[in-house]
């Protein structure tokens, strides 16, 4: 952890004033380290985004993240700047997630069993009983998100969890903004219903 933070931190210090767009341009022109810096900046969000979209296992997530960044590298020279690099990266990840869901529909594990999960500490919750209750709540929400229909799940993850601009997400998904907001509304409604049903 310390080693990673040190390496990632050094990269941030070196490239801290360089925008994502400049990094992508540098990589496209031959600076391979720029891709590493992009990975340092966005790997956490990419993991989260892909995990929420696919509900994939940890091993599959690693493959998905790797495929996403390699695809970003391959298409770096085609980045046109109409959206932010982060949105563009998630767009690539979205395609990867769709491929994954199609290819693994039958053998995909929709939701991870509690015993198989990596241990996670809920921030701000110190008491073990509260921690467990909170964890159950979050797991229920995670399960509800994964069980959403794909169009609603994509919109909810992109707009609510990753907080991407609605216009960019609409362009990313290829739908009108009105459709996007309607889907977001439906997603919230379905999640609330799922959480009420649980409680």
């Amino acid at each position, binding site marked *: 952890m310390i080693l990673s933070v040190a390496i990632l931190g050094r990269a941030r210090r070196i490239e801290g004033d360089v925008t994502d767009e400049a990094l992508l341009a540098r990589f496209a022109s031959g600076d391979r380290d720029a*891709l590493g810096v992009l990975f340092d900046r966005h790997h956490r969000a990419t993991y989260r985004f892909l995990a929420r979209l696919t509900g994939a296992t940890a091993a599959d997530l690693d493959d998905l993240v790797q495929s996403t960044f390699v695809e970003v590298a391959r298409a770096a020279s085609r980045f046109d700047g109409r959206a932010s690099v982060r949105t563009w990266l998630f767009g690539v990840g979205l395609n990867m997630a769709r491929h994954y869901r199609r290819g693994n529909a039958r053998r995909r594990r929709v939701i991870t069993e509690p015993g198989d999960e990596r241990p996670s500490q809920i921030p701000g919750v110190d008491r073990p009983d509260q921690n467990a209750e909170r964890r159950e709540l979050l797991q229920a929400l995670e399960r509800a998100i994964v069980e959403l229909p794909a169009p609603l799940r994509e919109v909810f993850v992109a707009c609510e969890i990753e907080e991407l601009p609605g216009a960019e997400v609409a362009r990313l998904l290829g739908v009108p903004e009105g459709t996007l907001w309607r889907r977001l509304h439906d997603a919230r409604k379905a*999640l609330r219903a799922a959480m009420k049903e649980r409680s």
Partner: protein
Amino acid sequence: MTDDAADLRALAKEIPVELPAQDDLLALRQRIVAKGAAARRRARLRTASFAAFAVAAGAVLAIGFTHPVHPPTASIAHYHGVVVASAGARYTHPSGIPDELVVLEAGRIHVEVSPLAPGERFRVRAPDGEVEVRGTAFDVTVDSGHLTAVAVAHGRVEVRALDAQPAVLGNGESWQGRAQIGGAPAATVPVADSAAVATATAHSASAAAPVSPRRSTSTADAPANTAVAPIAAPPPETSATIADVAMPSISVPAPSLAPAPSLAPAPSLVPAPKPSAASSALAPAMPQDRAREEERRERRDERRERQDQRRLR
């Protein structure tokens, strides 16, 4: 409702992210950087290959538009005259239809000209005179820088020499200039009487043999029936004077057999340096070769990339 949405958002963002261990994360980072660089290289190579192919295709199109590539038969369709050079003859054929000109510097050439359209000319220019024809077969001899003899097999020619009155020659007639050296007078030159076939007979004292009929590159596709065939048996030494011919000779059908100027040409009787028309016809093949080479190189690089990826796995 808004609060509900905000709460839901906050709760969703609170769902923990399952990141791999740091060592695994670093290994993943290294794999991504290596594979990403390879993928970018491959993409750039593909783009470059496509660009090279596009440039080659564009070049082919550009050449096609600026220098229309005609088959060899079409490339010489702008000549009316068939020039058969004797050994030792030096001549050029600098212009074609409508004002076709053959400049004879030395030696003897045999010329056959298909019928000219109104306004078209065909001339053989000597250092001190010229011969203008209108569909005929005739011999012209230049010796020591002077027009020395003209013999008409058929048709009509007008001879205009510097020190002589213009003369019009008809079938079987001949003209002799002032500087003829030795040999039989032009009027006695044996000329083939066939309208379709010309006979080249050497008047030069040094080389009295006709040139054997040979196809040049520019006339390789000419039909066989347009060949200037009945020529005396080719002597072995005729090739010694090939280099003296500055321009490729062009063959066209004899007047009586090939009245249309667009007909396929007869084979050249004089071996010539590579004709420019043929060169331009071959030129577009070079970019295509380069494109194929690029494709081969791309496939080779892709194989290497796959091997690298297998090694990485």
